[in-house]
């Protein structure tokens, strides 16, 4: 049975701005996330280039201290909240339903709401450049520095902006968990789910449990700044270290939120380009779950210099060492997947191998942080900057770029250029290492982070200059990437449904997939079910291509009532615009009438969005 438009009940338009504003199609929302992430990556990247330009030589004068402090704070916030989290959400939105054989996510309108709230929150945060100054208290917003200067609204943008982004992520995470737990195709047991889906389960739970913690802290910052709260005011028996605990109880799981989906992506790509199943699927899955649990027990390793007692320091140090074990297991299993395979090195595989090679370095330097006495030298130095860029750039960003090359054909129906992809990879690989490897040495040689200038005669000049040159190489590599995206979208080779000879269900449908994803919902019998529809196994354990006859007709669900897709709705964007406006009102609450005026507008719009949403039927009447 082929689904005709009539079966969909209502055919959403796919042309024009309005169709994007009202879309609740998980694939289009995924594309919105991806495009937003790329745009904000350019913003965050320009911030980084300014920072590196200032630091190219001792006593740099390109930026004032004030500008520098705002830029490094915004660079961190942008890259974490507006680039890596949304690019993970982009892949998750687009591919989770496709990988589990579902037609959409569990809560399509909530999905749209999460995207728009994310977008408006980032726009609110970014507007601070023009309206009152940007946050300048570092992305960690340590109290009481973040509550100290109430004359500026800068850190109000921080507390409200991060709060709203938290709401958006929470909505998204709940949606993913509900989707994965309730909407899998028949036969897809938990242990037949692709690893990317598993890692999404873990990262979503991490967000669900950690965001409320920082939510509390951010309100405390807001209340301290605007309502005389004194939570973090030492002179009033408040405790500045409480904020650090609340921040890192969120902040450390957040690191895994950023990296676990990338783990998932490389775990999808490696088997395809090795032509072997993932080595030790259940080890990879359970080590991901173990990382999730342990990730909640290591937060205070960010505070080894803060003055905790030695017993607490020893405990958190040991817990941190422990987390290296499941992380190491993953790396070994990835290499095990390649071992004995028949490897081809298309762009997705190159970036994946780059990911493994460099994430390993970030992982090892992470273990050195667990060595508490050594940590007291490394902490807040450039060594830490090097470490987390090896994890979040060498790891996460390489993983997501690998994902982009891998799944672009499914998004657009066209292949990305392999030649440009190879240039992209090598320039990025060299530029990345040139930028961040020297920063290990800078840190050990005593250069603290978050410093807008440094003296000469410290032995830091050469390394800083190298690092700056590397940063511009990274920028160059992304010009290749962006050009490749645009040119391939326009003129790329037509991909077909299954250009990589894939293993998972998203490759079984058309490229790009229809609105309803699958004409017929598959019934799943194996891990890597799609592969086993194409290949059998001979006596020696090798894959053998099945003939059309052998393969037969795939097992599918017979749907008697046609396909019903939810209808587009503009209430999600209204509700999220209202909430973001409420946030803007809170930022300017201390300036009286303006703040309250904006707050009032926000309340009305929010109410309109929420009530309209509640009253709207999920599926418009078809006939």
């Amino acid at each position: 049975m082929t689904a005709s438009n009539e079966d969909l009940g209502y055919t959403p338009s796919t042309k024009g701005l309005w169709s994007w504003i009202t879309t609740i199609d998980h694939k289009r929302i995924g594309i919105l996330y991806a495009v937003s992430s790329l745009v904000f990556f350019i913003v965050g990247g320009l911030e980084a280039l300014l920072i590196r330009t200032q630091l190219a030589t001792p006593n740099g004068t390109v930026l004032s201290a004030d500008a520098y402090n705002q830029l490094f704070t915004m660079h961190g916030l942008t890259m974490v909240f507006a680039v890596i989290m949304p690019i993970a959400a982009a892949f998750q939105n687009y591919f989770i339903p496709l990988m589990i054989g579902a037609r959409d996510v569990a809560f399509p309108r909530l999905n749209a709401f999460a995207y728009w709230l994310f977008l408006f929150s980032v726009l609110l945060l970014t507007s601070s450049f023009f309206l009152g100054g940007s946050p300048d208290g570092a992305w960690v917003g340590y109290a009481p520095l973040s509550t100290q200067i109430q004359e500026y609204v800068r850190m109000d943008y921080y507390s409200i902006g991060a709060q709203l982004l938290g709401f958006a992520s929470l909505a998204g995470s709940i949606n993913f968990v509900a989707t994965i737990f309730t909407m899998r195709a028949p036969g897809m047991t938990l242990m037949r789910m692709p690893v990317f889906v598993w890692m999404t389960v873990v990262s979503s739970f991490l967000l669900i449990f950690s965001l409320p913690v920082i939510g509390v802290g951010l309100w405390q910052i807001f209340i301290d700044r605007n309502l005389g709260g004194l939570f973090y005011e030492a002179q009033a028996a408040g405790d500045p270290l409480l904020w650090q605990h609340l921040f890192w109880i969120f902040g450390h799981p957040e690191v895994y939120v950023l990296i676990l989906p990338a783990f998932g992506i490389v775990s999808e790509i490696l088997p395809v380009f090795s032509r072997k199943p993932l080595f030790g699927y259940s080890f990879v899955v359970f080590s991901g779950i173990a990382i999730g649990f342990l990730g909640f027990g290591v937060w205070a390793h960010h505070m080894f210099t803060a003055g905790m007692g030695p017993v607490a320091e020893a405990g958190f140090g040991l817990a941190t060492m422990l987390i290296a074990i499941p992380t190491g297991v993953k790396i070994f299993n990835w290499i095990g997947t390649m071992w004995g395979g028949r490897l081809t090195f298309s762009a997705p595989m190159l970036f994946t191998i780059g990911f493994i090679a460099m994430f390993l370095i970030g992982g090892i330097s992470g273990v050195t942080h667990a060595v508490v006495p050594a940590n007291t030298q490394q902490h807040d130095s450039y060594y830490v900057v090097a470490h987390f860029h090896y994890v979040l750039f060498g790891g996460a960003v390489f993983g997501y770029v690998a994902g982009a090359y891998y799944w672009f054909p499914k998004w657009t129906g066209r292949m990305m250029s392999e030649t440009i992809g190879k240039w992209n990879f090598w320039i990025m690989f060299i530029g990345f290492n040139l930028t961040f490897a020297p920063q290990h040495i800078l840190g050990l040689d005593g250069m603290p982070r978050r410093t807008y200038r440094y003296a000469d005669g410290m032995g830091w000049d050469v390394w800083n200059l190298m690092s700056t040159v590397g940063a511009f190489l990274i920028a160059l590599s992304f010009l290749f990437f962006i050009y490749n995206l645009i040119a391939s979208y326009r003129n790329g080779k037509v991909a077909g449904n299954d250009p990589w000879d894939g293993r998972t269900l998203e490759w079984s449908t058309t490229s790009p997939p229809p609105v309803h994803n699958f004409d017929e919902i598959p019934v799943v019998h194996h891990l890597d079910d799609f592969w086993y529809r194409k290949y059998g196994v001979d006596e020696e354990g090798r894959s053998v291509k099945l003939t059309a006859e052998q393969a037969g007709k795939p097992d599918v669900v017979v749907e008697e009532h046609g396909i019903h897709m939810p209808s587009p709705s503009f209430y999600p964007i209204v509700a999220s615009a209202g909430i973001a406006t409420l946030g803007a009102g809170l930022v300017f609450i201390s300036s009286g009438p303006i703040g309250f005026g904006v707050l009032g507008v926000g309340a009305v719009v929010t109410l309109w969005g929420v009530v309209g949403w509640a009253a709207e039927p999920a599926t418009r009447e078809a006939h």
Partner: protein
Amino acid sequence: MLRIAIPILVFGALFAASCSSDLPQSSLNPRSVEAGRIDQLWSLVLWISVAVFVVVETALVYAIVRFRKRPGDEDEPKQVHGNTRLEIAWTIVPALILAFVAVPTMVTLSELRSPAEGDFLRVEVIGHQWWWEFRYPDIIDSEGRPLTTANEMHIPAGMTTELQMTSVDVIHSFWVPSLSGKRDVVPGRETYLKITPDADVAGQMIPGQCAEYCGLAHADMRFRVYVDSDDTFDTWTAAQLEPSPIPSSDPAAAGYETFTQLCTTCHQANVVGPGGSSEVIGAALGPDLTHFGSRSTIGAGIEENTAEHLAEWIADPASVKPMTPELNDIGAGRILGMPDYGLDERQIAELVSLLEGWK
């Protein structure tokens, strides 16, 4: 090949760098018992890390080379789903390596965190935006006032100094990499750090700086530690405990007039007139200026202390070091910079003469 070459070059450079003597603020250039212990532990961890790195990256590169698809190679590989024994092994081996690292980590940690014992010098460290105050509670003058200085600390070589630290505003972090790991300086709390400089570093100046982001001029919150021989240390403390003279002849005398009218709003000095007894004037919100002329830097370690630099500083402090005195709230004790008082050149020269004369 690049994948191997780059890290090897980097690690090679790291070692080359660690051997160099031009790294005044390097943790790889330890000059105290504590920094030495940390450095030993670091070396152990580094070598283990390098070994793990080489083994794993070699396996990765081997897999890339050995199992790449060759022309004409059309066979499908064997579909291996895993190997439980192997996987258990590579779970246990890292655990053993980590256990091996954990033991010296815990031993060193408990050594470094144990309170100072026997004969030791106590110094109170107080963090301010964006300068350091040092007080020696056991080194007092005839009035019982402790030796107080700013932005440079003298400590004796070959003996333990215990720092008792707190902050008056936001969180700072005390870091002299060659002498010890860092320790945060937290308002409302006391944190401790002990430093036992090696006997043979007497006479050396060892730089440090704030390592916890503390706002606008965080990068310019530097300081110097002078490790003295016992004799030098005694001479220094004796001189620092003396009050500075109220000058009787111009231009310094005129400078003193300006000093008492403007500078004492925030700065303190222990002064003595001809034949009189010493008295402390001013408020302790900014650095104590009693022996300003004896210090090597101005602006918390950012410029050498010369008459020209001081004149520039007084003429427009925020042009030398970023500050926001317009946000000062003296009543609430919030000091975020030194204002530009719009003094004319003559007044500035008089003040410079006064302060540089207070050795």
